[in-house]
């Protein structure tokens, strides 16, 4: 499926997407700095951090991998772990099948980089009038990709210079998702799904404990949505 790409349109897409990405840029400063500092403490410099970010591009799992790497070399456990930690991304894909339908030749990149934040941006915004959506979505994801790679590498550099107690810095991510949740909550039609998402995940967390609950939560959500398919 070859489709012509107008370079001018790519620039327009990036420009149009830019305002919506700015809040995430700022939200990521804290997280990226934390990650850079953690990597630095483990002995990985900015170039290593950049490589991790460019190839993996999965904030939460990259951070979770730090203590796992400190514990030793276990690639099989790491692969299984990152699949399950990022299992929710499969659901992001389901949620974006329609929006990403006509996005060639950018589609592989959009899927490659389909992390929490690109997902939340793509579901909550649309291309401006008169622009092909594929350029807009590519602009969004490209900017976020560049931010994450740049900020984490920078965090690793700054980690050497800035020495302060970083306890609690990771709350930035929590705050970011609370805001994204509130944005969904604003739309009254989405509130039942909001409540189902919170309630099912909370129940799963209570029933299965902090390390095993994500898969049961996603399975439970599927079940509830299947049962309510004619009502929601």
């Amino acid at each position, binding site marked *: 499926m070859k489709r012509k790409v107008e370079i001018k349109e790519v620039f327009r897409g990036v420009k149009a997407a830019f305002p919506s990405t700015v809040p995430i840029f700022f939200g990521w400063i804290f997280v990226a700095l934390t990650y850079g500092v953690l990597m630095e403490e483990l002995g990985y410099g900015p170039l290593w951090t950049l490589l991790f970010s460019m190839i993996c591009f999965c904030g939460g799992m990259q951070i979770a991998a730090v203590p796992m790497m400190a514990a030793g070399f276990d690639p099989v456990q790491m*692969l299984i772990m990152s699949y399950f930690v990022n299992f929710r991304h499969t659901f992001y894909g389901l949620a974006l*099948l329609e929006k990403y339908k006509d996005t060639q030749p950018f589609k592989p990149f959009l899927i490659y980089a389909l992390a929490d934040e690109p997902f939340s941006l793509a579901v909550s915004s649309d291309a401006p009038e008169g622009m092909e959506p594929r350029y807009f979505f590519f602009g969004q994801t490209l900017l976020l990709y560049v931010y994450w790679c740049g900020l984490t590498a920078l965090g690793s550099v700054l980690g050497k210079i800035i020495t302060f107690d970083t306890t609690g810095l990771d709350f*930035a991510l929590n705050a970011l998702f609370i805001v994204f949740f509130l944005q969904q909550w604003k739309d009254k039609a989405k509130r039942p799904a909001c409540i189902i998402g919170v309630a*099912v995940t909370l129940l799963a967390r209570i029933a299965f404990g902090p390390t095993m609950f994500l898969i049961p939560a996603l399975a439970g959500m599927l079940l509830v949505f299947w049962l309510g398919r004619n009502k929601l």
Partner: protein
Amino acid sequence: MKLTVIQTLIIILAIAVGTQISRWLPFLAFSGKKETPAFVKYLGRVLPPALMGLLVVYCFKNTPIFTGSHGLPELIAALFVVLSYEWKENLLLSVGGGTVAYMLLVQFVF
């Protein structure tokens, strides 16, 4: 570095492969040649808000409720985020302010 260069590169690949499988699956399963099933379309509509809820709970999965500070710093900082966002709808203010509030709480108060 606890791991060697080669070991680290293998770890990077392991993380990337695990992540990419989860991201590509739905697009490979519903590749556009056939009409997407109605149930999958419906999931595409209800999943975004539900997943945002899941992410919020996921963030607090390790918050101790019955021990330590009983999740009070988390509760106070989360309330700050919610109320400030309801008030100003400014993501930077809510994320930055909430994080600073949380850091002050866990480092100096609790």
